[in-house]
């Protein structure tokens, strides 16, 4: 059975229904405005300051409201929904602690450029600034981690603000926008006239179309290059530019690496794809970046996990950076050819101008050589379960077609390495902020966006315990997420660092006292399964796939496994620890 989303009427139908101007409350304006923005579901948690809003929602069925068990669950779910669907995710929380519980999720979305509209209640305008009960200056607190924010002081501004918020969140470099609504504003009455007015923000004009002269420079650089390399990131997926990227690679035959957030932007089976770059990237990607004479960054931000030590990053390369956010260009890496624009638009303009660079044959041969000599590898075992093997099994049994969300840590890197993504928006992970607790709620959001698809949430035993209460949501809404727990009874990534960098001083990483995850699942009314060897693993997983509703499958894996390759801090990315496999 799949998650149920009520059928949403078209905005035209809704507009017709509300065409007659009507005096209604701020709360009703909010609900109608959300519908006019095409919102299908919101994730939230009520409380004192949003009670007028929740009162207006009583019996309201035009969009689905998912009551999570923690505000952090709500915002990560909205985030997962947004990443999986490409639409704006919406969540609602009350003032004070409700709002502050959203902070981690807002920062997560901000770092990964995820479009969210975050609605918080606040105390009545007359009480603002008095340290009133459950008051927090949430616009102040979240200013550094939102694309923009609003504190609504007059109910008359509400329709415009909501419309602007959706526009800002979903255009340019996408990101979270916060709307803080004081309680009296949500109760106040005003005349509401649904309008389709275009947003007019003088200080906000994202540049979509690139400078033609810069494009010409890139075309020339591609012709001149002997060892060109593409570094593609999440911007490709966010702009919907994956097909244009495929065409670009087809025409130029330039090898391509995709960042953690760029996984799925390019088919992993393609000969020219070299895997992920950076700290836990492939040998091939890292060597290719370092050896390249032209590095074309398409919608990635040269994160330090990708570049390693900047002194010595791509030392021979002419750097091209294509990004919709001008501030990303030159931020970390000096750029020779800056191209500001929407990735899809840029690539579509570029494609007719470029063709295969014939002189790069030797380079492509070198790439293939690296690929065959140094693939991802691990020492398999017949006695204990290896986490990499588990991911490979998930990949095989689902033919790489599931939506995979992860938590943060070793399992996340193994999933990135061993699951093979072929389509965009199939891989949902907290990249920039590295937020533990993200895995389960983001999967709930992704499943809401795609009720018909298989959604797998891959978690560690650590992160699973940061939002495990959201199992309840899976059970009561019958959200058929398959929740995988890679249990090594330890904070694995921390353990790995302590082993390799802190001389085996294993400080406070033992997760002794974790619950019996099967019983935990059952306590919430979710089916729970456990596997400790390959045979059990295959059986449990097959059973999970056959079970219609949500299932937790715990894979008890070997404890001391490390993620390789690894670039330790301070090293350049060609200085990789390759492990002993």
């Amino acid at each position, binding site marked *: 059975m799949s998650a149920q989303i009520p059928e949403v009427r078209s905005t035209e139908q809704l507009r017709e229904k509300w065409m007659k101007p009507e005096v209604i409350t701020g709360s009703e304006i909010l609900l109608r405005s959300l519908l006019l923005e095409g919102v299908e579901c919101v994730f939230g948690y009520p409380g004192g300051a949003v009670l007028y809003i929740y009162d207006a929602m009583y019996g309201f069925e035009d969009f689905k409201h998912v009551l999570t068990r923690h505000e952090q669950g709500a915002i990560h779910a909205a985030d997962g929904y947004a990443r999986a669907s490409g639409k704006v995710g919406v969540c609602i929380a009350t003032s004070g602690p409700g709002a502050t519980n959203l902070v981690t999720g807002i920062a997560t979305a901000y770092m990964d450029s995820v479009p969210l509209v975050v609605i918080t209640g606040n105390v009545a305008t007359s009480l603002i600034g008095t340290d009133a009960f459950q008051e927090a200056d949430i*616009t*102040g607190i979240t*200013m*550094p981690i939102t*694309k*923009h924010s609003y*504190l609504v002081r007059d109910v008359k501004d509400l329709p415009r603000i909501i419309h602007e918020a959706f526009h*800002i969140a979903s255009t340019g*470099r996408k990101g979270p926008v916060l709307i803080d609504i004081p309680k009296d504003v949500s109760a106040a009455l005003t005349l509401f006239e649904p309008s389709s007015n275009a947003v007019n*923000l*003088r*200080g*906000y004009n994202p540049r979509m179309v690139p400078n033609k002269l810069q494009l010409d420079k890139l075309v020339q650089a591609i012709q001149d290059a002997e060892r060109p390399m593409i570094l593609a990131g999440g911007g490709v997926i966010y702009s919907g530019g994956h097909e244009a990227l495929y065409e670009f690679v087809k025409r130029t035959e330039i090898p391509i690496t995709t960042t953690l957030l760029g996984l799925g932007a390019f088919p992993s089976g393609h000969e020219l794809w070299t895997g992920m770059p950076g700290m836990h990237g492939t040998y091939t990607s890292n060597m290719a970046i370092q050896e390249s004479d032209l590095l074309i960054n398409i919608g990635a931000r040269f994160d330090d996990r990708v570049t390693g030590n900047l002194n010595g990053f791509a030392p021979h390369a002419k750097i091209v950076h294509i990004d919709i*956010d*001008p*501030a990303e*260009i*030159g*931020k970390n890496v000096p750029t020779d050819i800056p191209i500001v624009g929407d990735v899809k638009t840029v690539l579509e303009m570029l494609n007719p101008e470029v063709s295969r660079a014939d002189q790069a044959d030797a380079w492509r041969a070198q790439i293939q050589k690296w690929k065959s000599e140094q693939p991802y590898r691990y020492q398999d075992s017949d006695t204990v379960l290896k986490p990499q093997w588990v991911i490979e099994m998930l990949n095989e049994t689902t033919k790489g077609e599931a939506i995979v969300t992860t938590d943060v840590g070793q399992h996340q890197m193994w999933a990135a390495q061993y699951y093979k993504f072929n389509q965009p928006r199939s891989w949902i992970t907290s990249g920039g902020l590295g937020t533990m607790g993200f895995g389960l709620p983001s999967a709930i959001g992704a499943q809401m966006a795609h009720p018909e698809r298989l959604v797998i949430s891959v978690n560690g035993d650590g992160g699973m315990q940061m939002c495990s209460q959201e199992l309840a949501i899976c059970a009561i809404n019958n959200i058929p997420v398959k929740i995988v727990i890679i249990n090594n009874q330890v904070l694995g990534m921390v353990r790995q660092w302590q082993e390799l960098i802190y001389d085996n001083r294993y400080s406070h990483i033992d997760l002794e006292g974790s619950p019996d995850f099967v019983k935990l699942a059952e306590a919430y009314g979710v089916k729970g399964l456990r596997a400790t060897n390959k045979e059990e693993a295959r059986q449990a997983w097959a059973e999970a796939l056959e079970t219609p509703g949500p299932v937790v499958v715990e894979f008890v894996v070997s404890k001391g496994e490390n993620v390789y390759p690894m670039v330790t801090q301070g090293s350049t990315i060609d200085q990789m620890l390759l492990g002993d496999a």
Partner: protein
Amino acid sequence: MSTRHTIAVLVNDQPGVLQRVSGLFGRRGFNIESITVGQSEETGLSRMVIVTVGDEQTLEQIEKQLYKLIDVIKVINLSSNPMVARELALIKVNAEPSERPEIMGVVETFRAAVVDIGSHNLMVQVVGDTTKIDAMIELLKPYGIRELSRTGVTAMIRGNV
């Protein structure tokens, strides 16, 4: 090479806009030497003038990051042009009657003004560029400065720009 830059930022006159701008400087590790804000020529818009120290790359990042704020309309690097930069300072300096003629001499030389006289002190108002005010303060220090308040720099490009 780190140098001093004066930047004018035209912003929407919204609550919290100063916090947005100054917060951006803080969290990205940009330096603020002085920041002033007041009305601009257009209703609904304020003009901030920020003096900062950094190299060319930092300056470029400051401009780009400022443009990311929705309430920022325009960023102008004033110090890349011939500009007029002024700040105002009020200086309350110890001044026994016997010392007053001497202090008045300093004040007149700097084309400053005495704007208040107490029984043991004077309040001096001085307008000028930062170095002039620094010099004035240096000269008044020996008398004992009781209180000092500087506005920070406001500035404009010369001519028809």
